[in-house]
């Protein structure tokens, strides 16, 4: 009887459609977020994360409808990130049926927003998303900094210290993305994941770099993550969630099968 480690597929949504391509064996066009969510739910996903990458704020209303639609059909926890900047944004997403919101850039520019959000809605629904990138040279002790704008803008903020601060401010969970690994498919940045996970008392979701199922196992066992997030390995039907869980179980990791 132990808490299971979680597998969380992540869907990037642009103006109401899943982008980066999603493909299931028996469905040709699966760009519909509701369809994709249902499929992952059937496969045994433990939670779903939607990242709204819509550029214009006018189109953000579309995301609210997507969340409403998914929440009426899929009965697992839903996290929504992207464009969460005001208390009103959080309220809207929670009312639409999201269980958690991920705050990223807004936390960096205004840490008090995290405190306010946690006080208003409870820490359990406030995820702080951290995009970290290594700033120390090879051979030096590792040091990671927070980057914004998709990993392009450095902030000078130390990632480990930032994670601790965000938990003090009320974050109930940390979504940690390695900007060095994101999109590389060579595996999580395990050293970074472990450093953050051991530094904070709240659950940490590892993200960025997954290319195969062994990477998920490593993220939990070596990275000490509480949950693993992946996009492309599931989107292109290379692996199902169930296969991922069986792999984890075979490696002695507690999962929900």
């Amino acid at each position: 009887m132990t808490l299971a480690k979680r597998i969380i597929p992540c869907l990037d949504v642009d103006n109401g459609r899943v982008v980066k391509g999603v493909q299931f064996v028996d469905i040709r066009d699966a760009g519909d977020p509701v369809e994709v969510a249902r499929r992952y739910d059937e496969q045994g996903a433990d939670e779903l994360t939607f990242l709204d990458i819509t550029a214009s704020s006018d189109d953000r209303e579309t995301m609210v409808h997507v969340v409403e639609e998914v929440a009426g059909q899929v009965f697992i926890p839903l996290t929504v990130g992207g464009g969460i900047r005001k208390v009103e944004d959080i309220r809207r997403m929670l009312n639409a049926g999201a269980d958690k919101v991920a705050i990223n850039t807004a936390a960096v520019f205004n840490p008090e927003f995290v405190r306010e959000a946690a006080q208003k809605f409870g820490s359990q629904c406030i995820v702080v998303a951290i995009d970290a990138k290594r700033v120390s040279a090879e051979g030096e002790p590792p040091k990671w900094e927070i980057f914004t704008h998709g990993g392009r803008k450095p902030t000078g903020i130390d990632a480990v210290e930032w994670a601790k601060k965000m938990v003090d401010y009320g974050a109930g969970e940390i979504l940690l993305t390695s900007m060095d690994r994101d999109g590389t498919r060579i595996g999580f940045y395990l050293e970074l994941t472990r450093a953050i996970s051991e530094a904070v008392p709240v659950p940490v979701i590892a993200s960025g770099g997954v290319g195969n199922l062994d990477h998920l196992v490593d993220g939990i066992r070596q990275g000490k993550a509480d949950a693993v997030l992946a996009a492309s390995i599931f989107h292109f039907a290379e692996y199902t969630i169930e296969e991922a869980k069986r792999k984890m179980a075979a490696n002695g990791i507690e999962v929900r099968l």
Partner: protein
Amino acid sequence: MSTVAVIDYGMGNLHSVAKALEKVGHGVEVQVTADAGHILTADHVVLPGVGAMRDCMAEISRLGLDKVVHQVAESGTPLLGVCVGMQAMMDWSAENEGVDCLGILPGKVQYFGSELTDGKTGERLKIPHMGWNQVHQTMDHPLWRGIPQDARFYFVHSYYVEPAGPEVIAATSEYGFPFTVAVTRNNVFAVQFHPEKSQHDGLKLYENFLNWDGTSPT
């Protein structure tokens, strides 16, 4: 038409609870409401909740819902507490330096503690207790019908219920130590996990609740 009232005191994700009840309640009208009349005439009542206990209890009292929930509990109408809704049914919670709760069921609500470790591996356990854990049914009850023993349900909480006596315990789970995750007495049933976020088994529990006449099995 049969009705189920989801008590709305301004805290928590009522949308999810209502959606789940709609999904399984064929021909059942789901009312999200703070209206005493609606709550007291409903065939089934759900007390949900997330957030901090002090705020929850303050809102419940401000809206006069404390008396209403007591009336429901005494009326024999099936009443289901979920997460903070379960905690609110106890006598007292250690959250926010101590909060008096509804006292519908005897017991306290305690903090998991910041030094929690796994009994077997010795690894530090994260707080909140967040994710899918196994629920061990300790009594035969209509609400467990069709739900496998040790099925996994979705949890997110930092405080847990410690009943005054073992007779109300309906299920336990383990996180560093065994703790109570479901309690029941007469027409009242309460769970720490979120059935509305626990996929098939969670929906099954709501379905069982809507089919329950409120009589206890013993």
